[in-house]
């Protein structure tokens, strides 16, 4: 097996990974970025609405980072670590300034300064944006910036697993997709910036590549996930492609209707109606569909027609275009077909505000792969892009500090590396049996049905036993394609392994938390229970069992109060 060596390896070429790599590279350390897709294809490119930032002198005069922290803490249903939220708010202006200086084409005010708009859950408008393609604009600007630095990019390389020596990370094995050749990357530090896991759910707004690989790798290496039960669902994803139709549509007056043409939100949220919080609207839509008032295929209509063609095209251009391009629906004439879909993962690799994981020396994480805990039980819109950059940068800086005193392991661990490759292949070694698609489709349905928007003990236990069955079944997975170049069937099988490991952890943690908080909603425990559950879940995967422990939530200033809007 080929071998190479770096001071640090960043897995993931999205916003979080590239920002971490930037910090490490400008400090003069030798760093590589490994990504299973060319960096600009990362999921960060899909983000639409914007990035939240308090900018001194360019924000509402009454606003203050304190308010921003408060909004974030409350939005996250008090499961947020408040020191993390404070850091996020304090650094938000600086990160936007940096991205601007690197060429991000933020929309402007007439005086040439970065413009701002209002987003749900904000006391004052704070969202900075580039049209409706903020993620794409940021990702391209950042990628273009780092492509001029001394960083080795391994694009279309698939990371298989971490290698550790006792409690210390010593490297990882990744495979070039084009040649299918594995390489042992020796290193002192690994930053996991592998993004989210939307493909675990039958319906998700995420990219096809979001398969939770980083969580799987971290779990198998012995690191914990924090708050794995918290999965965010967005109420209005376009049917059937699950492309996000922004909350802005309902903000402008769009109305949800069932197959009888009824405005059903009058039943579920008589005051807030269609603008009730994401979780409530999602639950309402699912109820309508389950009770037979959805359309065949399982969706409801988002009606804009009463707003008039001119208004729609001017104010809701993106919703209009998405419906037209991806569902063939003219939103000026008929309702847009929508249904809830998985949208974001609040859980992730357990790290603190420096990006450090304390299970393994040399393991760091940032972005959606990590749980610093700025989002708690429920993420606010436009806080995630901010998190990727702020904590990507913090983590990069932490790695630089770490490297100044870390030394390379002298032990030869070539055997370990071989073992990882063998395991990957053994997993798919059978000559007949099921192929990945069969297991994958079942897993996605199970997660959606049983560990989704509505949860209860019976349903989740059924789901868990199905996951256990599927994990067994996958051991005999059969890869039909024997090709030695760009064998995506093999990689899809490996992704599925990661998804199954993560699913097992999510199911266990969700069954364990007997309360409702933020996105974790249990019909059998519908109330938030601060007395017993104001704490983080810490979950380890040990073979086939999940070990659950707890960590206190860091509270600096804001004591829990009821989350009413």
């Amino acid at each position, binding site marked *: 097996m080929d071998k190479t060596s770096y001071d640090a390896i960043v897995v993931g070429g999205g916003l979080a990974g590239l920002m971490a790599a930037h910090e490490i590279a400008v400090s003069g350390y030798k760093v590589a970025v490994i990504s299973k897709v060319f960096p*600009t294809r990362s999921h960060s490119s899909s983000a639409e609405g914007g990035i939240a930032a308090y900018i001194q002198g360019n924000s509402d005069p009454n606003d203050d980072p304190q308010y921003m922290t408060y909004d974030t803490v409350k939005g996250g249903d008090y499961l947020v670590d408040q020191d993390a939220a404070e850091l996020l708010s304090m650094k938000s202006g600086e990160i936007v*300034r940096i991205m601007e200086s690197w060429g991000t084409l933020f929309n402007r005010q007439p005086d040439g300064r970065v413009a701002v708009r209002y987003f749900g859950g904000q006391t004052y408008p704070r969202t900075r944006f580039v049209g409706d*393609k903020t993620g794409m604009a940021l990702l391209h*600007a950042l990628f273009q910036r780092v492509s001029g630095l001394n960083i080795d990019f391994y694009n279309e390389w698939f990371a298989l697993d971490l290698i550790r020596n006792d409690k210390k990370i010593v490297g990882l094995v990744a495979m070039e997709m084009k040649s299918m050749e594995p390489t042992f990357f020796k290193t002192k530090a690994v930053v996991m910036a592998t993004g989210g896991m939307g493909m675990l759910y039958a319906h998700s707004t995420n990219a096809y590549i979001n398969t939770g690989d980083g969580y799987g790798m971290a779990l198998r290496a012995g690191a914990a996930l924090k708050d794995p039960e918290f999965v965010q669902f967005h109420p209005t994803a376009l049917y059937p492609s699950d492309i996000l139709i922004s909350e802005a549509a309902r903000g402008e007056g769009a109305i949800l209707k069932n197959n009888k043409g009824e405005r059903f939100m009058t039943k579920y949220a008589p005051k807030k109606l269609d603008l009730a919080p994401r979780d409530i609207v999602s639950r309402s839509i699912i109820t309508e569909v389950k009770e037979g008032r959805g359309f065949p295929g399982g969706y409801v209509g988002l009606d804009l027609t009463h707003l008039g063609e001119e208004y729609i095209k001017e104010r809701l251009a993106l919703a209009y275009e998405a419906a037209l391009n*991806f569902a063939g629906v003219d939103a000026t004439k008929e309702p847009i077909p929508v249904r809830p879909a998985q949208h974001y993962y609040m859980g992730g690799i357990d790290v603190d505000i420096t990006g450090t994981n304390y299970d393994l020396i040399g393991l760091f994480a940032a972005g959606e792969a990590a749980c610093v805990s700025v989002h708690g039980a429920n993420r606010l819109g436009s806080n995630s892009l901010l998190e990727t950059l702020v904590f990507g940068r913090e983590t990069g800086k932490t790695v630089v500090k770490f490297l100044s005193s870390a030394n390379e392991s002298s032990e030869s661990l070539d055997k370990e590396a071989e073992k990882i490759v063998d395991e990957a292949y053994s997993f798919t070694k059978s000559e007949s049996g099921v192929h990945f698609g069969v297991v994958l489709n079942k897993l996605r349905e199970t997660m959606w049905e049983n560990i989704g928007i509505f949860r209860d003990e019976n349903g989740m236990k059924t789901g868990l036993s199905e996951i256990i069955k599927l994990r067994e079944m996958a051991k005999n997975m059969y890869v039909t394609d024997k090709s030695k*170049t760009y064998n995506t069937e093999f990689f899809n099988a490996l992704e599925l392994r990661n998804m199954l490991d993560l699913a097992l952890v999510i199911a266990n943690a969700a069954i364990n938390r007997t309360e409702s908080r933020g996105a974790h909603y249990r019909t059998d425990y519908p109330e938030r229970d601060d007395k017993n559950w104001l704490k983080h879940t810490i979950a380890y995967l040990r073979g086939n069992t999940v070990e659950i422990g707890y960590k206190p939530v860091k509270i600096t200033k804001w004591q829990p109060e009821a989350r009413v809007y």
Partner: protein
Amino acid sequence: MSEKEQEIVVKIKRFSQDKGNYWQEYKVNVDRFTQMTEVLRRIKTEQDPSLSYRASCHMAVCGSCGMKINGEPRLACKTLALDIVKKYNSNVITLEPMDYFQPIKDLVVDLDDFYDRMFKVKPRLYPDKEVLEGKAEQRLKPEDQRELWKFEQCIWCGLCVSGCPSVRNDPEFLGPAAHAKGYRFLADPRDTIYEERLKILIDSSWRCTYCYQCFNVCPRDVEPVTTIKKTRAHTRFLKDRSAVAEIGEKHIEAIEESIKDSGMIKEAEVYLKTYGVIASLTDLIYAFQNGKLKYAFVKEMKVKNMDQIRKIMGD
């Protein structure tokens, strides 16, 4: 909202090192909402896991899924199966890898050449030192932001390069996407390496044949050819001109003459005057093959608005 399903036949041009090129057929039920990426996903997870293709965002922003659909360069996710059925009046849809790039496996092509082109134009802002250090703030007029954003929206999909006749013909030509990217920074008032950029871009900008293929295929309406036109207008700012740039100047003269003579842009005539008979003939053959000759004719119309023409010419 009707949910009528219809069966389509998907014929995919496959490739592997062992088996070479071959065609394979699949049958898939689709409704009017089904994107071609979804068709591919269903084939891979339900029928034939060995099929390889690239797709990520399924919303036309990541640039992964470029391919030829019924011979047209398109993004698979931005293409609804039944729209193609309607357009071609047939339920058979063919999928092929993008032209020009080497196939690696099935619909996956090698994009290294494309990325090399993009990196050649130094695709990043070089701002003032003070700004980089956070000691000064840079502002941007809203109208400049709008103009630049149009060209910055390239998603690196490669479709325009795969269809560009000049890229195939002329190894010195940077290609449409790289020109769009290069111009985006050339025109950015915050950038500090104008001279260097000009040197990279000018010569190449005169190697485009204005066939408009890039304009037609770009899924983000970047209009690479527009950036090439705009770049050419900067030729006069360059001190040492190369042979190609000299030819370019001749091109402008020829156009001016043509307009003076007839009040029309006789593209073909101008072309001949500029490049000579042999070069023009080879280009014509390419234009023909690409079905693009029609654009040469479209443009031979009476000029109504001389101001507009001057604008296009970069005055």
